[in-house]
């Protein structure tokens, strides 16, 4: 990271590094963090990265990312590293695994799908391909491509 943009270490919380450049806001969205929750958050976008050219970094204080949340982050940031911090030390790493199922987060692109037409229906997608990512609606079998998933999460 270039000098001048150094963000201080956090004591407790989560550091998410190696997010593809420009997707840090989408990661926050996946986590349901809007900013009004009061967590102290450092967000660095388009930082230099030897591995990725450019990358985003997120530091969220006092918020531990759960395994399930880490899986969802994988959808839009497959190479991200997610470190859990306690007393300034990394005490845990979340595994980067594409979830087998994504419930509620995404919308089916088929207008005739039951999930787009019944107030009680909740979307559920099954992962059928990991690279490039492809999901299938559990109800109507419509496929979602990686582009569509990113587009929806970026909103």
């Amino acid at each position: 990271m270039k000098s001048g943009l150094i963000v201080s270490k956090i004591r407790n919380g989560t550091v998410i590094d190696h997010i593809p450049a420009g997707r840090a806001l989408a990661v926050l969205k996946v986590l349901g963090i809007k900013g009004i929750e009061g967590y102290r958050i450092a967000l660095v976008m388009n930082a230099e990265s030897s591995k990725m050219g450019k990358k985003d970094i997120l530091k969220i204080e006092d918020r531990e990312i759960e395994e399930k949340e880490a899986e969802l982050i994988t959808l839009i940031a497959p190479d991200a590293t997610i470190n859990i911090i306690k007393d300034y030390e990394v005490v845990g790493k979340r595994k980067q695994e594409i979830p087998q199922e994504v419930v509620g987060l995404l919308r089916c692109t088929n207008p005739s799908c039951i999930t787009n037409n019944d107030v009680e229906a909740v979307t559920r997608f099954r992962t059928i391909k990991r690279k490039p990512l492809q999901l299938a609606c559990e109800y109507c079998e419509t496929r979602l491509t990686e582009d569509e998933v990113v587009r929806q999460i970026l909103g």
Partner: protein
Amino acid sequence: MRDVISILDFSKSEVLELFELTDEVLSGKFKPRLEGKIVATAFFEPSTRTALSFTSAALSAGAKVLGFSSDEATSVSKGENLADTIRMLENYADCIVMRHKLDGSAKFAAEIAKKPVINAGDGKREHPTQALIDMYTVRKLFGTMEGLTFGFLGDLRYARTVNSMLRILTMFRPRMVYLISPPQLRARAEILEELNYPVKELTDVRDIIGELDVLYVTRIQRERFLDEDEYEKVKESYRLEYRTVEKMKRDSAILHPLPRVSEIDRRIDSMPQAKYFLEASYAVPLRSALLHEVMAGD
């Protein structure tokens, strides 16, 4: 007690058992016994034929039947609550047979209902009991379901019976399956990707007509086309002609889920290959065997 949502809910041995049970229903050796049971036929999308077929199947097994077949129930698709309707129905019945215009509606209903749900057609997705009737007919005619050559003609994109048929065929290793349709009505990628047998897509049935054991014809619907002229053109070129059927093997079979409109020349009805009325005659015995399996089987 089980749901019947997709044909893939069945294993091959379950399909074969159901067919054997249907044989016994037809021969009178077995009588489905559903006395004291109530079957609900919930046809959110109207279909007199399928609703009557299930009704007859249930009545012949001694069950009572209630239900509706109405367009009104789905005329307001936004804000409609299928879940509530299903909850109401399961208070009245032991099994819900449903048809709905929305894709995935049957699966959703089955998740809501504790009682078994039978999918009698959900949107453009599946119609598993029709595929069972179709394959049962093939077995009756050929004595086997393995190693045959099939052709599917017409609308392969929106025809749910074709989806269920293509899927049930993964159990029976067909020699070849020809998919004959206009380019805009080709079978869906998500169905084709999972097939485990050779498939060829083409646009003219006459190219392979002599090779077929089974020709499965579907209706091309006007509402799939924006342009009336385009529809007329396609409809004419996907109409099965007398001259074409003359080139079919004598012991081959033409199937159609019915109702047909103009896609099969009526003169074909009296040709030896025309088996769609025979096919239709198996609907009630098969569905009564299935209702028995669903409600009284183990």
